[in-house]
Each structure stands twice: as C-alpha cells, then as structure tokens.
C-alpha cells in the first residue's frame, strides 16, 4: 500500500473494523462477525417457493453453517448422550452430502435440553474447517474431510465444562484458533496453533459461565485484537500472545456477543455500551443506552442504526451516534438466533422457525414477509450465494431464489 494514503484511509475509518473479506460466511455471524452481508441479494419476499432445498442433518445442533465457495459445513451431535460429534460438508448448489466425519466426545456432553453438543459454530481461515463442541472437543479438517488435528480440551482440562452446555464459537486469526471455554470452574480461553492444534497460549479467565464468542477486530492503528467478553467486561488481547492490550471492566452480558461497525465496538454491557478503541492501546466510551438490551441475540449495526432484539421478540432500533432509541417493533414469537442482514434487510428467525424479513428503513420498522419452517430454530442463520442458510435440530434449509441455482 502507498504509505502516503494510509493516514487518509485510517482517518476515514476504512481500515478500521472487521478483518475478513465478505465473499464467504466463515464463522458465527459471518466473515466480519457483524451478521451483515450487504452485497447479497436474498429475496425480501419469502414464501414456500423460496426454499431452494432442504436436507436432513446427521444430528442436533444450533451451530451456524460455515460457507466457503461451493461448500456448506455444518456441525451436529447425536447419540443418546449427544456424544457423537459430527462435521458434515454439503454441496451449496443442491445440498448433496460431500463427506462427513464423526468423533467421540472426550468431555462432558450434558447441556440444557434446548441445545446440544453442537452449540458453538465452526470457523475457517480458508485453509481448513475448525469445529468446536460443547464438550470442548476441537477438530481441524481440510475441505475434503482429511483430519489435520484433534484436541480434546474437555479431556485435557476436565473441570472446564458447563452443565447447561458451552456455546462460545471459534474464531481464527492469523494462524491462531481462539477457543473459549469459560465456565464456573476451570475457566480458560486458549489460542491453538491452526497447523497443529497445540497451545500457543492459554489464559485463566473469570470463573463464571459464559456463552459469548471471541470477536476479532482491527483497531485504528491497524493492529488485530480479539475481544473476550465476560461478566467482568471485555478485554482486548493480542491473538498471537494472549496478552491484554486494554481492559473495560464495567461488566458485560454472558450471552449476546460484541459486534463492530465503523471502528466502534458495540458491547452488550449495562444495556448497550459503545467503545471506540484508540491508536494508543486504549479506548473511549462513546455512549451507553440502558434502553438497548439485547437478549440472547447479539446486536446488529446497519449504517447509522443499531438493532437489539430481546428474547420476547421486541426489536429496538437506535441511532449509532448517540444511542437514542428511534423505534421498537414487536416480532412474532420468542428469539434466540441473532438477526442477519443482506441487502439492507434484517432476517429474524424465531424459535418456532418463523423467518420474518424486516425493513429497517421503514419509519418504525416493518415486516415485509414471513416464511414458516415449522421446526424449532435456535441457531443463527448464515448468508452466502444470495441465500439464507438456516438449520434446526433436524434440517438445513437454503432459502433464496430458485432461479439462483
């Protein structure tokens, strides 16, 4: 890059924020971790003819699908003890199963009945698919299903578990797989070497159950950090060493995760708190709103609007400049899944499997269309190839334009 234009780009915020390209949906909430794919052309008017294909899955799960080029990766668990951990690879065009691998859980598999061992979402760095499970088993496979490495973190650290289940998704940053296993007892987050799975670093973390996911971002100085969110607040760490760069200690939720937009972090803390990391290793608190309280779903930012969806289906919209709440819209049903966005719309899937497409530009928000999938859905959808990918305990749906095949 021409060094002379770097300050201009930094000043414009063009280098601040998410790390990955948007072509693929590479992790929980997408390549940027912001739940947004602005370039995708997912239909806003959904109906039964919007189901391009649906296929049965090999087990239960709430993990989001990961999509790379023509492949869709999904994790599941099965067996009477949910101790069979499965990674499946499907053909994006028609849902054909390309390969599957099953592993035996080495850690505890007890979870709340709503979820199962396949709660954390997998992630990819474009070289491999990294899958993580509530039992703290972590596996790396290449895109053809060849095993690269296996870690039984639940066997290695046997008191790192949660009887309600673990759900923190993986993130991969510059050759390090970030695996968060935070719980009431042996609580830690580890950085694993993406090539071998061995520990690069391992941090003791607050002894408190935590279902949030690590969030990588690039700060104003161009450094990549990973936000670890917990009941204590958030810390930004160096993904190569695990060392703390800055710490926000005013508490945070242990369910919805931080997101980012235009160089700012939107942290589910005391409602919603917006932090702006600086170039000197610190941060500035921009605003805080007690009215914006995400439930299980993580916040989503579109342009100058931030959205928080609570468990009861109230979608709140606020101005990103000051946190002032602009409107609220009651959606149908109760929610666990984070809304995702394509083409400026929000796609919200409730626990009864009803997809509701929201126009966030309408004066008080408006539901444009609905599609009932008639199955319990807890997991956050993914977006790729102008389609929405939704999974339940039993099925995976591709929702889009049938002509897109």
């Amino acid at each position, binding site marked *: 890059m021409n060094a002379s234009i770097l300050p201009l780009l930094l000043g414009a915020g063009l280098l601040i924020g998410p790390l990955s390209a948007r072509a693929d949906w590479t992790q929980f909430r997408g390549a940027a971790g912001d739940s947004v794919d602005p370039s995708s052309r997912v239909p806003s008017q959904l109906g039964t003819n919007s189901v391009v294909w649906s296929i049965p899955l090999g087990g239960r799960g709430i993990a989001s699908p990961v999509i790379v080029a023509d492949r869709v990766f999904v994790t599941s668990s099965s*067996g*009477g*003890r*949910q*101790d069979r951990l499965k990674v499946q690879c499907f053909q994006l065009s028609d849902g054909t199963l390309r*390969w*599957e*691998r*099953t*592993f*035996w*859980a*080495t*850690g*505890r*598999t*007890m*979870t*709340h009945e709503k979820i199962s061992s396949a709660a954390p979402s997998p992630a990819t760095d474009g070289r491999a698919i990294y899958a993580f499970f509530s*039992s703290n*088993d972590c*596996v790396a496979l290449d895109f053809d*299903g*060849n*095993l*690269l*490495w*296996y*870690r*039984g973190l*639940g*066997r*290695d650290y*046997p*008191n790192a*578990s*949660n*009887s*309600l289940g673990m759900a923190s998704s993986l993130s991969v940053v510059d050759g390090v797989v970030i695996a968060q296993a935070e*719980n*009431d*007892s042996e609580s830690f987050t580890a950085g*694993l*070497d993406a090539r*071998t*799975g*061995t*520990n690069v670093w391992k941090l003791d973390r607050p*002894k408190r*159950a935590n279902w949030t996911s690590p969030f990588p971002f690039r700060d104003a100085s161009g450094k990549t950090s990973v936000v670890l969110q917990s009941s204590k607040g958030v810390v930004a760490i160096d993904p190569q060493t695990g060392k703390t760069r800055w710490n926000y200690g005013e508490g945070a939720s242990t369910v919805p995760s931080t997101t980012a937009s235009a160089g700012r972090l939107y942290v589910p803390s005391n409602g919603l708190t917006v932090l702006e990391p600086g170039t000197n290793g610190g941060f500035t608190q921009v605003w805080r709103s007690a009215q914006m309280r995400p439930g299980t779903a993580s916040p989503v930012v579109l342009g100058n609007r931030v959205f928080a969806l609570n468990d009861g289906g109230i979608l709140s919209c606020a101005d990103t400049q000051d946190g002032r709440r602009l409107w609220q819209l009651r959606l149908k049903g109760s929610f666990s899944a984070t809304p995702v966005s394509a083409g400026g719309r929000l796609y919200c899937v409730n626990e009864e499997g009803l997809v509701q497409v929201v126009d966030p530009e309408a004066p008080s928000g408006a539901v444009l269309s609905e599609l009932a999938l008639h199955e319990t859905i807890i997991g956050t959808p993914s977006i790729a190839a102008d389609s929405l990918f939704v999974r339940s305990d039993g099925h995976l749906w591709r929702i889009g334009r049938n002509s897109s095949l």
Partner: protein
Amino acid sequence: MSSGTDSLPTPGREVRPGPSRSSSWSRVGGLALLLTFSQGLTAADLGSSLRELQAVAAEGRGNPAANPAWRRVAAAEARSLPTLLGAMDGANDYALNWIRAAIESVVQRELARSRTLPTEALLRFARDTHHHPRARHLAFELVGRQDPAMHDRLLPEFLNDPSPDLRRDSVQALLNEGVALATKDKPAAIAVLQKALSSVRDADQVDAVAARLKELGQPVDLPRVFGWVHRWRLIGPFDNTSGAGFEKAFPPESIIDAAAEYEGKTGKVKWREQNTTSDYGIVDFNQPFGALKSVTGYAVAEFWSDTPRRAEIRLGCKDGWKVWANGKFLFGRDEYHRGYEIDQYRMPVELQKGRNVILVKCCQNEQTEDWTKEWEFQLRVTDSSGTPIFSSR
C-alpha cells in the same frame, strides 16, 4: 446423557478397556507380514502410521507426526478395516478419534468406488469382546452400512453386551418392539419390555422402558434398576459463605468418626443416619437440616465388596461437590445450579475387598432463586458398562 462417554481421568493414568498396546500390536504385526494394504502402502507403513496415531496425547502432543500418518492410514483399502479397528485396542480417547476419522475416510472412498466392505471380518470383530467397545460398535455400524438387514437381524445378540453402545442399540430395538406391540398384544408387549428392563443401562432408556411398563400396569423397582447407594450418614451444616467452604477442609475430610461432634456454622453438629427411598436415589440435605444457604454438608456411606475390583462411582449433583473413596480424593467441582442428571460425573475407583468408605462433600451457595433450593446428590457404583454394583452388606 452422561458426563461424556468416559469417566473422569485419573491423573497420570489412562483407564481403557481392551488388551494392552503390545498385545494388540502383536496381532497387527502378524497381519503385517502377510498383507499389503493399499497401493504404495506396505503393511509396515500402515503399522508405523497407526503407531503414530496411537501416540497422540494430551494437549495436542503427537499431533504434528499424526497428521501425515493419518493420510497414510486413510489411504488403506477396505480389507484393512479390521486392522484399523484393532488399533483402537488400548488407544486413548484422542487416538480413538484419529483412527475413527481414518476409518470413515476409507469407508467413504471405498463405497464411492462401489467396493464392498469385509462384512464377515467386521462381524467377527464386533463379536469379539476383547476388542475396544467403541471399535466393536463401529465395526457393527459398518456391517449395517454394507448390509442393513444383517445388522438388524443380529442386533438382538448384543442385548447384554459389555459395549454400552451395542447394548443401547439392542435395548432400543426391544423398546421399539414393545411400544409397537402395546396396542395389539399387551402380554407380549410386557414380556418384551421386561426383557429390555433386565438389560437396560442408560438412564434415559430406563425411564422410557419404565414409563411404558407403567402404562401397561407393571410396577418397576427403579431404585433397584439404578442401584443407588441408599444408606448414608450426614453431617452439617458447615459454612460456605461466598463459596469458601468448597476449598476449606472441615473435620470429616480428615477423619470419619461416627460419634464425633464438631463446631458447625450455627452450633454443634454430629452425624445422623439418612436413608433414601427416592426412585432416583436423592440424598437431600435440606430434609434433616432445613432449606439452608451458604452451607456445606458431608455424607458418608459404607460400601462392601466381596473382591477387589475396578468400578465407577457415578454422581449427579447440581451443587459444589467433592468425592473421596477410602480417603482418596477422586474429583470435585465448584459449579452451582447449572443442572444435574443421572451419571453426570463418572469417577474410576478401585474397590478393595471388604469395607469401602465413600465420602461426599456437598456445598450449597447463596443464590435465592426457586431453582437453587436443591442441596442434594445421587450416587451409585457401577461397572464401566453402567451395570449397578450393589454393596454386599
């Protein structure tokens, strides 16, 4: 569900069924002299590659060497599947998964090429109880991939199998049969379900079979089926303010003296008998001591064994807990009110001939919500398949 498919590890020791590595490898080595397993892969290559997979260990040790070895193993032909399965004998949990993934890769490739799996050899493997229980179950699954009818026809022979998974599948088939018969032939349904009840080990299947029998008017002695330890002595309350009691060693951790009296949280405390008749073996501290908070209690039981033997102590508890057997600390966990279930934690134990002493520490925290009232646990002693072992006195 259970605590996972395996018991909690004993530091410095891996408890695994099946022959030792040397004995399994003598078999593999014998085959290695005779066979070439795939194009470009000699038997010796396969043997050394499998050894690399068996060498993986905690914290990813052995992973770098296992990676290229895995590719060589995954290149094997279908006829080598029994050899690959045999390499699971004596393998640790990490190695089991490396080998399983290679087997799946072989099966996927060979079936895609319309080649057949060696059904007879796989069936022999599945029937041989000297092999690793998981390897046997996987072998039988592969029989089913090749010949589903054979799988279903032979499944009943595994009803009392030491492999928990083979037994589970066989029990499930009986349960399904009993349910199907219930509306057509009640006596036949009862007979089938009673047969299932005599073999069932997994808690969820026990409940399913018992519920069906109850619908058919048949009582089920659940405490006997589960085999709970039901005769206990309790002492408490000791303090657990701010969770500090979990790490504090109160007198029962040093000596079990039935006649002793100690200073507790609110006054003198002494041991008292507490027998449970609960279907689910619940030992409830709230019953004798009241619904207390921020407290610690202990429960002690004598367990008599006719012979020295390896066993498992299986615990369900949603409070902070620690367990000792014959004065040896087995495991502990300071998680509160996240839920519990039968066989939530499995701890390997060596029972000694005669009297064994099981001590449970159970800590209640300060939470006040309705769902945090329970100050209790359930415990049973079983073999590795989940078959209850009863105290001989």
